[in-house]
C-alpha cells in the first residue's frame, strides 16, 4: 500500500509549550486515518501543519512522496474545527464562490445532492443550524474533488442525529476511494469510520494501528459491568480485575461464563448487568490513566 501522505519527525512548539513532539506517521491512499485523543492532545496542531495552515517547528511532510507544492491545495479539501462563512452569502453562492478558486471543480448540483443541502440553498450561511453548517463546510471542502480530505473534529457540537448523518456522508465519500484524515475525541466515531488510527496524548503518539488490532493487542478480556448501588459488599473475591468507574464497576474477564457464575454465587443483584467488549476509551484509559473526554 503506497502512502499518499507521510509525516516525519514533526514537532511544533508554542513558546515553552511543546504541542506536538516528534511524531511520524504515513497515510495509505484510500484509507480513513484517524487522530484520536482528548482536547489539547495536539490533534488540531498536527492536522493544521499537514494542511499547510500552521508552519511546523521541525519535521517533514511529503505528499505523494514529494514535499508539498502549489498543487497540494488544488488537490486537498479542508474542513476546520471552527470557521464561519461570509455574513451575507447564501449556501448556493458560497459554493459558487469557492468553486471559482480551483482550476477543477465538482459540479455544484452533485455536491448539493451528496451533502443534502437542498433545503437551505437560499439561506444565508450564517443562519444555518450546526448540522447544516457542517454539511455546507464539507461540501466546500469537497468542491475541488480532492484526493485527500482533512476533517478536524467535524461532529463536535452536533446532536446525535446530525452526527450519525455526517458519519454516513463520510462513509459515502470513503466508498469513492478518497483518502480521509480525521481528528476526533469521540471513540465511537474513530471505531466506526477509521481504518487506521493513531492515539495521541500530550503531543505524542501513544498507540497506532487499526481499531480492531489495537483492541486485540491490548485486551484479551471482555467487561462485565454493574451499577455501583447494586453492590453492598466488597468484591474482594473477584480480585484485581475489578475497576471502579464513575458509572459503576467493570470486571475484566477472559471467561465470561465463569465470572458470571462467580457473581451468581456471591448472590449479587444482577439487574444492571451488561457484558461489553473493550472500547478505545478503555484503551486510552489503560495507556494514560485518564479518559478521552476529561
Amino acid at each position, binding site marked *: 500500500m503506497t502512502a499518499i501522505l507521510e509525516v516525519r519527525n514533526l514537532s511544533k512548539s508554542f513558546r515553552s509549550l511543546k504541542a506536538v513532539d516528534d511524531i511520524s506517521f504515513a497515510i495509505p491512499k484510500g484509507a480513513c486515518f484517524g487522530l484520536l485523543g482528548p482536547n489539547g492532545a495536539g490533534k488540531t496542531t498536527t492536522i493544521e501543519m499537514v*494542511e499547510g*495552515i500552521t508552519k511546523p517547528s521541525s519535521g517533514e511532510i511529503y505528499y505523494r512522496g514529494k514535499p508539498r507544492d*502549489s498543487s497540494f*491545495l*488544488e488537490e*486537498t479539501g*479542508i474542513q*476546520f474545527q*471552527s*470557521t*464561519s*462563512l*461570509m*455574513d*451575507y*452569502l447564501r449556501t448556493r*453562492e458560497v459554493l*459558487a*464562490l*469557492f468553486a*471559482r*478558486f*480551483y*482550476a477543477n471543480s465538482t459540479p455544484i448540483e452533485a455536491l448539493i445532492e451528496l451533502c443534502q443541502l437542498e433545503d437551505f440553498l437560499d439561506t444565508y450561511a450564517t443562519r444555518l443550524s450546526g448540522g447544516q453548517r457542517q454539511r455546507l*463546510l464539507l461540501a*466546500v471542502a469537497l468542491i475541488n474533488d480532492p484526493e485527500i480530505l482533512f476533517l478536524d473534529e467535524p461532529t463536535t457540537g452536533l446532536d446525535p442525529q446530525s452526527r450519525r448523518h455526517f458519519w454516513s456522508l463520510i462513509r459515502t465519500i470513503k466508498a469513492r476511494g478518497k483518502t480521509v484524515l480525521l481528528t476526533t475525541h469521540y471513540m465511537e466515531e474513530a471505531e466506526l469510520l477509521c481504518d487506521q488510527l493513531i492515539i495521541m496524548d500530550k503531543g505524542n503518539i501513544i498507540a497506532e494501528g487499526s481499531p480492531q488490532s489495537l483492541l486485540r493487542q491490548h485486551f484479551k478480556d471482555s467487561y462485565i459491568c454493574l451499577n455501583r448501588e447494586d453492590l453492598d459488599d466488597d468484591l474482594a473475591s473477584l480480585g484485581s480485575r475489578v475497576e471502579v468507574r464513575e458509572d459503576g464497576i467493570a470486571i475484566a474477564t477472559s471467561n465470561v461464563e465463569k465470572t458470571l457464575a462467580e457473581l451468581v454465587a456471591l448472590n449479587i443483584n444482577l439487574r444492571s448487568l451488561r457484558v461489553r467488549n473493550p472500547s478505545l476509551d478503555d484503551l486510552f484509559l489503560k495507556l494514560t490513566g485518564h479518559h478521552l473526554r476529561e
Partner: protein
Amino acid sequence: MRRILALWMARNREYYRDKGSLFWSFIATPFIVIVLAVAFSSENEEIFRAGLLIDSASDRAYTHPFGEETAIGLVEYTDRQEALRRVQFHQLDILLTTQQPPRYWINTESAKGRLLEKLLLARQQTGTTLPPQPDWQKQEVSGKKIRYIDWAIPGILAMNMMFSGLWGIGYVIVRYRKNGVLKRLQATPLRAWEFLISQGLSRLGIMLAVTVIVFLICHLFIGFMMAGSYLLLLLIAIIGNLSIISISLLMATRTASEELANGLLNLISFPMLLLSELWFSLDDAPNWLQQLSQLLPLTHLVSAAREVMLEGAGIVQVAPQLLALVAMTAVFITLAGMLFRWHD
C-alpha cells in the same frame, strides 16, 4: 483574475445585503454632510484672522493694526499672490499692508471680512492709537467670489471618504480573520494579493458610488462651486480612495481583534481629521505640524480637490499631490502584501 472577480462579486453582494451599512452610506452620510455643510455655511467661527503683507520675514517693525485685540489673529505673509488666494478662499478675513500706499483687501462675500473692514476704518476715524493709523485704501479680491462652504465642501467629502474607506475595508478583514473566514480562504489556492485586490476594488467601487451621490446631493442643496474638470476630480477621488484603502489594508494585515482595529483606525483618522486642512488651514500652526500634515494622504487629496474645484486647476497643477498619493499608496500596498497573515 477569475478568483478576484468571484471574490469582488461576493464582497459587493455582502455589502448591499447589509442593510445597516447601506443605510449608513447612502442615507445617513449625505444627511450628516449636509448638516455639516449648512452649519459651516453660516460662518459662526469666533476667531478672526488677519494677514499682514511684509517685505521679508525679518521686517517686523510694524504695529498691530488692530491693537491688542486678541480675538483677531495676525499671520505674516511675504507672498502677495498666496495671501490674496487665502482671502479669496476665506482662510484669511482681511489682508493688510503697511507698504506705501497702505491698503487692505477683503472678500466681499465674507461677513467677517466686512466686519473687520468696519473695525479697521472705525479705529482710523477715532484715531485712538499711536502712531496714527495710515490712510487705508480698500481693495477687493479679484476673481470669482468664493464662500466658506465652497472651501469647506472638498474637506467634508474627503472626510466622508476617509471614514468609509478606513472602517469599511479594514474592519471587515479583521472580523474575517477573527471568525476564521480568512483561514477557510487560505485553505484554497487563493493567494493573499488576489484577496486584497478584490477587497480593495470592491470598496473603491462602493466609495466612488457613495461619493458621487453625496457630491450630487450637496450640489443640489447647496450649489457649491465647481470650477475645474469633473473627470480630473474623479481621478483625484480614485487615487485618494486607493491611498486610504491601502492604509486600511495595512492596518488589517495582522490585527485579529476588532477592539484593537477600532483603536488603530482612530489613531489613523484623528490626525487626518485635524491636520489635513479639512476645516481650517494650518497657516498659523507650528512648522513641524505643517510638515507632519504632508505625510497624511488626506492632506494631498483635499488640497488637490480644492485646487480643481475652486481654481479650476488642471492635471499639471495637481500633479504633485497626485504623485504623493500614488507613492503613498504604493508603499502601503506593498507593505500590506508583505505583512499580510491569514490567521493569527
